């Protein structure tokens, strides 16, 4: 009887152990399946959103490329016009005057521009002179010297601007006309007019 009981007990323990293993397998595998279903759902949402991103961003490359081409053309146009009209030195000076330090970068289409020394444009020209000089030699400011150099002469810009005004001191004459002497000791005396300071004979506005 004892051996039979012993066999039965050993078999029961084996069955119990196998049952515990199966229960553990079922519990954990079901839990893993639930988690994997959550992951699948999350990845499905991700794939949907990523597909939308791909769809929405598809034309961005072409559009941005076109915009950059247009802006490049605009920059090339403005740089070329500036250099053509103002000359390389003044163009670099103007750009550096507006954006300090920009002269070091230079212009994109002019390799020599970074090595051009930028004049201090605010000291070479006054604003009015600069504006009128840009109008060309036919402008009133340049009428006195139609065949002379343009006013954009960087080295002699100040003298060129001064020559536009009446000739008084530009050629540095030895002596200028003396200032008139006024007062009681003045060599020229004028009679005092009686009507100055007197009441008006007729008020303005009356007919």
């Amino acid at each position, binding site marked *: 009887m004892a*051996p039979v009981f*012993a*066999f039965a007990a*050993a078999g029961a*323990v*084996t069955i*119990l*152990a*196998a049952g*515990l*293993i199966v229960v*553990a*397998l079922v*519990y*954990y*595998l079901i*839990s*893993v399946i639930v*988690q*994997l279903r*959550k*992951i699948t759902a*999350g*990845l499905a*949402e*991700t794939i949907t*959103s*990523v597909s*939308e*991103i791909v769809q*929405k*961003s598809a*034309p*961005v490359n072409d*559009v*941005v490329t*076109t*915009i950059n081409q*247009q*802006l490049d*053309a*605009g920059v090339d*146009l*403005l740089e070329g*016009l500036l*250099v*053509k*009209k*103002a*000359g390389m030195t*003044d163009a670099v000076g103007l750009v550096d005057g507006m954006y300090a330090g920009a002269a070091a970068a230079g212009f994109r289409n002019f390799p020599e521009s970074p090595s051009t020394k930028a004049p201090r444009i605010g000291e070479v020209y006054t604003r009015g002179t600069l504006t009128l000089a*840009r*109008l*060309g*030699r036919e402008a009133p400011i340049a009428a006195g010297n139609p065949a002379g150099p*343009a006013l*954009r002469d960087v080295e002699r810009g100040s003298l060129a601007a001064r020559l536009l005004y009446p000739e008084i001191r530009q050629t540095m004459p030895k002596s200028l006309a003396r200032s008139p002497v006024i007062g009681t000791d003045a060599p020229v005396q004028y009679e005092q007019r009686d009507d100055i300071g007197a009441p008006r004979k007729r008020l303005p506005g009356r007919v």
Partner: protein
Amino acid sequence: MILWWIGDLVLLAVVLPVVVYLLRGVLDAAKSIVPSVQEIAGAAAAGSKDLDAAALLLTTQDQVTQTVAGVANYGGSLDVILDDA
């Protein structure tokens, strides 16, 4: 008989803990993936929403084209009016 009991002992003391340990590791790994996937899904949804304005780039493109055309016309006029350096 003794071998049977030893087998039962090994089954309960070694095999069952090892199986539980391994399955628990797989479950923990699966659980740790879920928040990451949900964050990725949220980020992708937000990114998709941010790109809703990408369609306005077509308007920007048109405006840039018109602006550059205006600048070109203005530059052409200046080229005629002003003397060269």
